[in-house]
């Protein structure tokens, strides 16, 4: 199977987390859903030196970031690969903070229906933000709704 080469991911490591100093890096992700998995691995690798347990790094961080990226690419960029989703990560001894920004119009997270009510549970979609909220310690949005910020505290 010859899949067309996916557009490149661009990682910029701004501060290197030596000796308890914070690590800070950003990743530019072209808005192609085929990039989500690789972007998640790249971020997870960089966070290995951080304060999260292997289990939370391998499951909570990866799943939550995949949800945030999928939404940013799908709704923010409408899957236009020329549009780049910006991920900024700060790793300190206290927490990993991940900020995902898209160039879309944003949305109102309060208006998203609960996917676990009986009328919704058998639907195919609509679980992303719900899952995400359960996997990280804090989720915040900017007022416009095109920036989501995930905090995973140490442990």
């Amino acid at each position, binding site marked *: 199977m010859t899949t067309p080469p996916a557009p490149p991911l661009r990682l910029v490591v701004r501060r290197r987390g030596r000796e308890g100093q914070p690590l800070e890096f950003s990743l530019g992700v072209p808005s192609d*859903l*085929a*990039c*989500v*998995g690789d972007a*998640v691995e790249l971020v997870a690798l960089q966070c290995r030196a951080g304060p999260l347990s292997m*289990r939370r790094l*391998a*499951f*909570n961080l*990866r*799943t939550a970031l*995949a*949800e945030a990226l*999928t939404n940013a690419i799908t709704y923010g960029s409408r899957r236009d690969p020329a549009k780049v989703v910006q991920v900024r990560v700060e790793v300190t001894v206290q927490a990993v903070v991940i900020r995902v920004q898209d160039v879309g119009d944003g949305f109102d997270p309060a208006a998203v229906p609960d*996917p*676990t009510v009986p009328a919704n*549970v*058998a*639907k*195919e*979609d*609509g*679980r*992303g933000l*719900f*899952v995400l909220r*359960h996997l990280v310690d804090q989720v915040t949005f900017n007022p416009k709704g095109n920036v989501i910020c995930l905090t995973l505290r140490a442990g």
Partner: protein
Amino acid sequence: MSFNLRKDSKGVVVVGVDGQLIVGNRQELKQKVLDALEGGAKKFVIDFSRTGYIDSSGLGVLVSLSKKIREQGGDLRLAGLNEDLQTLFELTKLDTLFSILKTPEEAVAAF
């Protein structure tokens, strides 16, 4: 390979998910299972013993496959979920939609 299908002697198709089931590869899983369904298979087990994580679109594809298989008079079962994945199914209430068994062997035997 992300997905490997094998048909056991009882005609149950067991699909192993290696690594992750996410937005980038769920279509591949869907296609493989639908092909087997088209080919006459009715009993399916998805084995998550070697799965790192599943995102919500991965969950969505399971919901959709389960429906399609049931429409053909078949059944889809899940197995091999670790604690984190089990919790994911519980909090989304998807554990009420699927038969979830501990191991793929149990899931096959239960058909």
